[in-house]
């Protein structure tokens, strides 16, 4: 028993460098992707909310088109999406594998999801509050900025937290098809070389990362929600 422990410690210590680099790669991929996907998702959500049939300027054509695009992108299994997007990734980043290359499919894969989540956050805002804003003469733009956004803000924060955690999971998945980060380490060292200790540490670090981000998200929600 003691001998196993000593071996575990020694091997773990030897992985330090590899794991540290992998964590940094995973965080870079996840945070940049979340940031960009949130911006894109937010813009899409605003368009959806405005064009919705009960929205501020109903437009069935715009809403339906966007709706179909979002649903299509969301139906792809993520691994397949990465492969389908290889040409686009190569065109945009210059190569189709590696940490930065994976940001492209991560953004395209999760922006529609974030758009839906933020759209739902906007839809949760009581329609009578919007009516009240109209009743004192607020314009559409003011209603979005001064009513919808502040009212939906806590839910949007929850949505972004959820998205970040999904992206961390996706980024690990991306490691299996040429991405970097913890997923790649688990795959290359753990799976192909059959080294259980690598698997243990990558999973352990992923659990810790998810816990940390969820706690930060919950904390933010708590302090901004009234």
């Amino acid at each position, binding site marked *: 028993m003691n001998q196993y422990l000593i071996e575990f410690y020694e091997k773990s210590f030897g992985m330090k460098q590899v794991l540290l680099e992998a964590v940094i790669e995973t965080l870079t991929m996840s945070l940049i992707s979340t940031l960009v996907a949130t911006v894109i998702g937010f813009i899409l959500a605003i368009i959806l909310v405005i064009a919705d049939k009960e929205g501020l300027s109903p437009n069935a054509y715009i809403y339906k088109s966007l709706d179909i695009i979002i649903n299509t992108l969301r139906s792809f299994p993520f691994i397949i999406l990465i492969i389908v997007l290889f040409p686009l990734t190569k065109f945009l980043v210059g190569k189709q594998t590696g940490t930065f290359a994976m940001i492209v499919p991560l953004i395209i894969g999760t922006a529609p999801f974030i758009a839906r989540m933020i759209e739902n956050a906007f839809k949760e805002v009581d329609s009578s509050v919007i*009516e*009240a804003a109209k009743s004192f003469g607020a314009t559409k733009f003011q209603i979005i900025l001064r009513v919808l956004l502040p009212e939906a803000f806590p839910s949007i924060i929850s949505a972004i937290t959820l998205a970040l955690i999904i992206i961390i999971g996706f980024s690990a998945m991306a490691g299996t098809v040429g991405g970097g980060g913890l997923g790649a380490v688990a795959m290359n060292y753990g799976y192909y070389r059959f080294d259980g200790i690598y698997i243990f540490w990558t999973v352990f670090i992923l659990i810790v990362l998810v816990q940390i981000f969820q706690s930060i998200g919950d904390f933010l929600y708590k302090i901004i929600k009234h």
Partner: protein
Amino acid sequence: MIDIKHLSKYFDNQKVLDDISLHVNAGEIFAIVGHSGAGKSTLLRCINGLEGFSEGDMSVLGKEVKHLSESGLGELRKNIGMIFQNFSLLNQKNVYDNIALPMKVWGYSNDEIKIRVDELLNLVGLESKKFVYPKELSGGQKQRVAIARALTLNPKILLSDESTSALDPNTTKSILELLQEINTKLGVTIIIVTHEMEVVKKVASRALLLEDGKVIGLGRIDELFLRPDEKMMKFLGEDEELPKEGVNIRLYFPSNVSYNPIVTTMARELNINFNIVWGKLEKLNDNVVGTLVINIDEQTSIVIKNYLQEKAEVIWEVI
């Protein structure tokens, strides 16, 4: 102030408002009454253009609503405050920011906003709740914040859409008193939509009764409630059980005579006994009015009719 002529509105070929004409005078409290689904809230929303209408004319503050552009409608809404059944406050903003919102939308300076919000907090009696968030307020307090918000831009008209329906009777009373105060002190014309007859009786001077989008009554409330016609009785859900035999005479007591002992005086002076078979007293705008139905046989009815003819202070009819 508000002039509605032959207004109709369709929702998918269904007529929800049917040929409505009415005039609301400056400075009055006017009630639009009806059961749910009668179209009263829809009619109210036509006044500030939250809903459009299909036919007819609606002139508000001298402007024809259907001809207004989006910015023109905005200007009109600046002069019309509105309060709602479920208060419609922003939960993420405190009381101060909620009341300040209309002024922020219209680009007032922070100094102006500060002065006005303090004034309004004082008016609605919530100075101590200035920085509290709506979830910490009771229903009545929320409605007070909503009233303050509706008044920030100094509107000439205040629209109230079932504003007391979610409140208990005591809170309803205090909100109605606040509305009366706003009406008399600030001279704001108030239009109240409600299904609660008690609300109408307490504050409104005139009322419009709607059923299935049609007008079934329009006039001063003492007339509407004191001498309801058949439609009105049905509307109020009142049916009288009167004896089939003999003569039934209904006496109406307007507010100035309702405290006088007319019935007992009559009985004593004529030395006649009669049956009181139906009756009620009502408080309308803090005045008490009432009706009473008495039943007598054919012969004595003549004596009573003569007596009532002479005592002109009571209105009566044989039914």
